[in-house]
């Protein structure tokens, strides 16, 4: 039942609003609202009960193993939330003067420094509010760099065919055209195709490393040289930073600009779809273009770096200072982990993924890149099962839900058919991993003898499979009383 359907005229949460309506006699009548909006009318307990019960219908990291590839569903330490919401921090106005903001500013500055060191970049801006916004900022900086040098004919950005959709979308938002290059069967990008694609029209290339197919781009240093020689810049999509945190640095690989996904690597909450935070890091030559604001320390006090300090900045991306509360959570996480903790993230996430890969291969599942090491994630393809048993990746995914596990990422990257991209993360124990593999084996057995049953999964959740076609054809996205 929707909250609207539980409403009763005149019911309210009495403790939460003023007992009467203050006068609005100073406001012109023609600017006032005539009819109140259609909102719930429920008691406080009804609202609490309703939303609590809704929460119980969700899978979440706190309740289920959630091996979504490239999403890094690791444990969100509770301290990160409670300490970020301390009075003084949670109620600080974005325009509070610097004299009364040293606590907040010091956390932001420290986080900038930590991210610089762990990624090997020269400067960091915490401004972008999500990975996609970080990508937009990164590509905008590449454009600004070339424009500033009078090199305005560089109109192309090269993107591997396996790239995440935000990569080409962000490049187009900055006015670029896309040139796609293929990924080889062994998982590395096709360097010969890259050489052909490079030229005076190349502004840059967007890469993820480890790549979206879950393997390390072994020829990265060669790729970096080729792109730089052609006059282009290298952009690093940090979605898979968890695999190499503290073990390899994008700056050392030759990248000029990177974005990080703090809601992945630094364990800030996924919150049912956000908020994220997508700080960008740059090499020296892109530093003047960083988005504002940033935080500086002059030896005695912290202050904001503004547009006046950075006349070549690509500008501001949000009204204030980005997703500040999320940045605080990432900072707290970084202090809990420390430098050794960060290296352990890469080590144990890689250990967990390689263990799972081996056990799945042993169980007869087909790895997409069987000769390669798993990084923090790996791909299996269920194309054999789809062909022989008529049960595809989506069916396995839905049946996994009945086994109490959230499915891995399905059908991404697009180039591996019927794929599962599996990322356990470092915070899962061996029991979780064994459990998942057991479930996959059982589902395959079920597929052999009762394929139709598997195709009808899930059965134990609040709903069965949903009619997506109806949802798109008969668009119902706003409740109304006669619906």
């Amino acid at each position: 039942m929707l909250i609207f359907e539980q409403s009763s005229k005149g019911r309210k949460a009495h403790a939460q609003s003023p007992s009467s309506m203050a006068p609005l006699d100073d406001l012109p009548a023609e600017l006032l609202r005539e009819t109140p909006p259609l909102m719930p009318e429920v008691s406080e307990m009804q609202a609490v009960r309703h939303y609590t019960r809704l929460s119980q219908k969700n899978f979440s990291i706190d309740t289920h193993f959630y091996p979504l590839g490239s999403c890094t569903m690791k444990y969100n330490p509770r301290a990160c939330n409670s300490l970020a919401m301390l009075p003084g921090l949670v109620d600080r106005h974005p325009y509070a003067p610097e004299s009364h903001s040293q606590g907040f500013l010091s956390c932001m500055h420290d986080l900038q420094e930590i991210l610089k060191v762990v990624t090997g970049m020269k400067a960091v801006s915490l401004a972008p509010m999500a990975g996609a916004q970080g990508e937009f900022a990164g590509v905008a900086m590449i454009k600004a760099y070339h424009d500033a040098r009078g090199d305005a004919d560089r109109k192309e950005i090269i993107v591997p065919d396996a790239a995440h959709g935000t990569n080409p979308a962000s490049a187009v938002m900055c006015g670029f055209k896309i040139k796609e290059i293929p990924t080889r069967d062994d998982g590395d990008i096709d360097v010969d195709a890259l050489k052909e694609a490079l030229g005076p029209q190349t502004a840059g290339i967007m890469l993820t490393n480890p790549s979206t197919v879950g393997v390390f781009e072994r020829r990265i240093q060669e790729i970096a040289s080729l792109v730089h020689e052609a006059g282009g810049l290298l952009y690093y999509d940090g979605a898979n930073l968890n695999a190499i945190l503290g073990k390899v640095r994008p700056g050392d690989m030759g990248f000029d600009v990177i974005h990080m996904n703090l809601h992945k690597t630094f364990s800030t909450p996924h919150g049912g779809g956000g908020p994220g935070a997508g700080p960008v890091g740059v090499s020296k030559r892109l530093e003047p273009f960083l988005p504002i604001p940033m935080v500086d320390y002059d030896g005695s006090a912290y202050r904001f770096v503004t547009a006046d300090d950075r006349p070549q900045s690509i500008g501001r991306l949000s009204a204030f200072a980005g997703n500040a509360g999320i940045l605080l959570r990432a900072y707290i996480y970084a202090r809990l982990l420390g430098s050794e903790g960060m290296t352990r993230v890469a080590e144990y996430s890689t250990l967990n993924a390689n263990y799972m890969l081996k056990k799945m291969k042993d169980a007869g599942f087909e790895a997409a890149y069987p000769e390669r090491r798993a990084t923090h994630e790996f791909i299996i393809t269920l194309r054999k099962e789809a062909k022989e048993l008529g049960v595809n990746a989506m069916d396995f995914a839905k049946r996994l839900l009945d086994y109490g596990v959230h499915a891995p990422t399905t059908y991404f990257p697009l180039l591996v058919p019927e794929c599962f991209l599996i990322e356990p993360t470092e915070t899962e124990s061996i029991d979780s991993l064994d459990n998942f593999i057991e479930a996959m084996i059982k589902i395959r057995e079920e597929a052999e003898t009762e394929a139709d049953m598997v195709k009808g999964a899930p059965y134990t959740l609040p709903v069965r499979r949903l009619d997506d076609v109806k949802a798109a054809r008969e668009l119902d996205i706003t409740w109304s009383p006669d619906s």
Partner: protein
Amino acid sequence: MSYIPSDLLFTSSHEWVRDEGDDTVTIGITDHAQELLGDLVFIELPEVGDTIESGGEAGVVESVKAASDVFSPVSGEVIEINEDLVDSPELVNEQAYDNGWIYKIKLADAAELDGLLNAEAYNEVVEADEH
């Protein structure tokens, strides 16, 4: 196996063309295309009066899992659009070559029809795709 009528012309981007004989053509997407897309949920139609170049975008067909551009096989002016598709996009799935037609064009250059594929040639495109 998708159905390919022998009296139509085709493009490698899976559009079909029916020459109406009076300097106009009817255009739609093929059975193979609708199979790939899945259940269609929305068709973005061109506007009557639009001038389109051969290879230009004439509209978009949208399913739950994909949104594909419809490329115009020929140049000319759009003279009619299939308004039924607004409420019933599934006509493209069910009758790709009949009531699922998308738009009609008055040809700017009839010679362009010579550059299109016949049923046999299109069949080869489909077979290559299915591997």
